[in-house]
Structures are given as C-alpha cells and as structure tokens.
C-alpha cells in the first residue's frame, strides 16, 4: 500500500514491500511457476515406487507416511532452495540488490523479503500435501505438530541461507542448475527423502544424519510419524526424546548457514 501519510517504515513493512514485488516477479516467471507447481507433484509418483522398493527390505516402514514427509522435503528443496538460488542470482545480475542496498532496507531484510514468496508457496504446498495425504492415503494425524512446524520453519530458514550461499558461486541464472545440483543430490539421497535413513547401514545413516539438510527434514518425519524410523510411534510426549538431537543440529546448521551467507553473499556481479 502506498499511503502518502505513512510515517517511518518498519522492518515488517519493508519485508512486505519486497515480498510483494518478488511475488509479482515469481508469478511472471513461467519456468519458476512450472518448477514450483508441477515438479514436486510429478515427483510424488516416482517417489512412491522408490519408497515401496525400500520398504521391501525395511520391515515396519510406513510407505505412505514417508511419502508425505519426503514430498514436503522435495517441495522445500525445489521451491525454496533452487528457486531462490536463481532469484538471488538474477537480482544480483540485474543490479537490483545493489540498488536495494542504497535504500533503508537492511541486508537481511533484502534477502528475507526476496525469499518470502518462495517460502510461502512452499509452505502452502506442504499444507496441500498434508491435507491431501490425510484424505487420500489414510494417514494418521501428526504425532507432534509442533515438531512438524519447527521442521518446516528450520528447513525454510536453512534452505534460504543455503540458496544465498549457492548464489554466491553462481555466475548466471543459466548455471544455477549446476551449482544447486550437489546439495540437491546430497539432500535427496542423504537426508532420507529418496532412501529412508532406517534402510541404510547404521554407519552410513549416522553420517547422513550430520548432513546440513538432514536434521531439519528429520523433524518433519519424527513430528508426523512419531518415530525416527527405529521403532513404533512414540506419541506426542515420546517424540521429544528422539527429536532433541535433530532439533539442536537443525538450529545449529541454520545458524551456521545464515552466518556464512552473511559473510560470503555477493551483492554485485563480479567484474
């Protein structure tokens, strides 16, 4: 809203102004719209057969439950991480970020405001997956909704910071597909999305639990299914125990990524 009598701008009003402009840009970017709206749901189909195969040698695995939480993870990766890496790179190359820094918005506000529509879109799709999963796949309600929310928030924050970091090494929008690939692969195969951690040998699974994206995505899993996969659902109270370490690690990774993004983000193209 452009009210002439508006007094000093607040961080919130600046985030809203940046988010609104970025939402308009997102809507006008056909590739991004396609990737964000179609790809995650196209993946659900192939994800299902992958998870079914994994369930054959993992006794007690809940295929449908895994399908919903894994799909949420894929949505967050595609819509927040790859989308934002491209958006940050595009805005930098158009010198938009440089120009924004001459204004009143702080650095963090510029990055968060730009991320706002992508995060909102991803969360909306996660909600759709949750509702759709519950309706079509006969899922139980989440064992600990607070953990699910914490997982979504921490994932969004972490992936935003990682997108900023990836864009620092991305020269152009065209090469964003390459620079985001390592993390996309590591997250899909190492963070329990394609291959459930409980189906891996213990030593490999323990290593994968330390990957940046694993703890936050694990929280979705534990929060919804009530177990980290090593036992039956523990119910609301029982989930805090297995969730404690992932919660701590996820917060630590998000903090570290935010710090690194602040330290290494590039506001102007290389000359």
């Amino acid at each position: 809203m452009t009210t002439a009598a508006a007094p000093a701008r607040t961080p919130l009003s600046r985030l809203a102004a940046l988010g609104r402009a970025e939402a308009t840009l997102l809507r006008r970017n056909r590739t991004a719209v396609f990737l964000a709206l179609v790809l995650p749901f196209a993946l659900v189909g192939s994800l299902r057969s992958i998870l079914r195969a994994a369930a054959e040698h993992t006794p007690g695995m809940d295929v449908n439950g895994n399908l919903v939480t894994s799909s949420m993870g894929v949505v967050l990766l595609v819509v927040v991480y790859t989308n934002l890496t491209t958006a940050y790179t595009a805005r930098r190359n158009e010198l938009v970020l440089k120009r924004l820094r001459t204004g009143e918005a702080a650095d963090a506000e510029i990055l968060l405001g730009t991320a706002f529509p992508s995060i909102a879109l991803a969360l909306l799709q996660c909600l759709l997956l949750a509702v759709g999963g519950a309706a079509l796949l006969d899922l139980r309600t989440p064992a600990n909704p607070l953990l699910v929310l914490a997982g979504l928030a921490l994932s969004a924050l972490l992936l935003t910071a990682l997108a900023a970091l990836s864009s620092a090494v991305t020269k152009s929008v065209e090469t964003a597909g390459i620079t985001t690939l390592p993390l996309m692969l590591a997250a899909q195969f190492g963070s329990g999305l394609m291959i459930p951690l409980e189906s891996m040998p213990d030593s490999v699974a323990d290593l994968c639990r330390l990957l940046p994206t694993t703890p936050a995505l694990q929280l979705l899993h534990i929060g919804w299914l009530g177990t980290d996969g090593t036992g039956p659902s523990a119910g609301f109270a029982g989930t805090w125990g297995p969730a404690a370490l992932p919660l701590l690690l996820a917060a630590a990774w998000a903090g570290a990524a935010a710090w690194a993004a602040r330290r290494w983000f590039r506001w102007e193209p290389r000359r």
Partner: protein
Amino acid sequence: MTDTSRPRPAVEARGLHRRYGPSGANGFEAVRGLDLDVAPGELFALLGTNGAGKTSTLEVLEGLAGPSAGEVRVLGLDPRRDRAALRPRIGIMLQEGGFPGELTLAETGRCWAGLTTGARAVDEALDLVGLLPRRTVRVKQLSGGERRRLDLAMALLGRPEVLFLDEPSTGLDPEARASVWRLIRELRAAGTTVVLTTHYLEEAEELADRLAIMHHGRVVTGGTVAEVLAAHPARIGFELPERTGAHAALELPPLHGTTVGLDGRRVLLRTPDLQGTLTELLGWAARHQVELARLDARSASLEEAFLAVAASAAPTAAPAAPSQIGRAA
C-alpha cells in the same frame, strides 16, 4: 574553508582513502587523501576523467563502502555506523542502478515507496521525471535514458535532504538532459543539498555552486566555477599573413601578462585579461592593416581547466615565449 559562522557542512570528508585489494602493489588506491565540504543547500559537482575516483568517493559518502582511512560525515552522521538514522534522510542514484525488468514502473515505485520513509505518491515521483505516461510499462521496455530517469525518481521518492547523483545525465538525450537539469535546479532551490559526479563539463558549469576536479584519487582543483576558471587563462588564436613585403619586419606589440605560442603562422595567446589583450591586439592589427585570419577568442572554460588537469596532475603553466615573432616563425 571551515568558518565558525557557517553552519556545519551537510557533507564532509577528511583525509579520505579508499583502497581495493591488498596493501602493496597488488592493491589499488582509488581515493588518496580527499578533503571535501559541501554546505547545506549547496550543489556540489565532482568532476574527473574515468577512473579518477569519483564513484569510489561517492560510495564512501553514501555509506555503501567504508573508507580505508579518513573520516566521513553526512548531516553530522557516520554513513555506515548511523546508517539506519541517515538513510531515510538521503537519496542515492547509482551510476548503474537496477530494477527488475519484469515489474512495471508503478510496481517498482510501489516497492520502493514501501522501503522509503515519508515517500511521496509514486505517480508524483514518476511525474517529476516525466515518466508518468509510462507507469504501466515494464522496466525492461524502457530506453537507457528512461531507466536513468526512473532511477532518479526513486532517489527522490523520500524527499531527501541530501541527494547523491552519480552521473545523473549520462545516456540522456539533450531534451531529457535539459529537463533533468531543470529538476535538479528546482530541488536545489527547495533547499536540497546535491552532490553529483559528472564528466559533462557544461553540466557542472550549468548547475554547480562549487566543484572539485579529481585526478588519480585526489582533488586537484576546487572552488566556485568562477574561482576555478580564474586560475586558467583565456585564449586568443589567429593566423598572421605571409611575411612578405610590408609584413616582413612585423612584430607583435608587447602584450601584458600574455604568453604566446607559435605553430607555423598560427599564434596562440593565453591571457588572464581577455578584453584588454584583445583590444591591444586589434588596435595593433588595425594600425598595421594586418588581417588576422581565423581569429578566435575564447574566455576560460571549465573544459580547459579540465583538460589541463587531465594532462597532468599539477595545473599546467604554458612555457613563456617571447612576444616577438622572430625569423624562426
């Protein structure tokens, strides 16, 4: 320069240095000990060739970069430490600004208004730079000159007390430039302090109360336009006739305070007193019935001052030549 009766400068810099890269031979020092005072309400122009350090200086004044040494104050505040307090009071137009190509002008304005304390109505800002009829056009469809004007409109959105303009009229056609000049004059008349960089000399001559000419990261010449010009002589050029017959033994009169340069038959006089020297010269020519071919008299221009600075870091003094035309000519 600092006088206790004068108000505190709106912009001041003391011993400003800005260095890129590491110390030593691998780094580059773009600004090398710059002092600057801009009084409130003044229009100050920073002139210089490409690479003189204008933009590097401006970025430090704006708080976009820190100085490697020295002090900067804008409205009495530190542009970096007091960023949150200062930014709402200043407007910045970069040499090359960016706005997303897929947003319309109105959408761009709405976004910037949401980031700017006390923003004018977006349409009012667009109207100031003559872009109101283009409000629904996407930024990517604008010409280079229109983009510059959009950039200026966004810099003016918050009615800034101090306005920093990095080459505001570069890329504008003559008509657009004239209207931008008019706008800048109106802002100045309304009390806005303006610091602009330019390499258009007529722009500085036209707009600036005071100016500084930068070269290799230092201010080489500065002051009011009149003061800068006073340090540079006017020029009179003409050609003498063939030295035959009655003209064979011709001598120029002693022209006071004038230096004379010769290039074949072409004579170039440099004088601090254009009218006096010209009167003497024309009287002499009339008395001797000499035709001064291709006569050309020009008062000092900023261009000459600028070229003199660009030619060498120190102001050039033309070597004195005898005011007599010998056989060598």
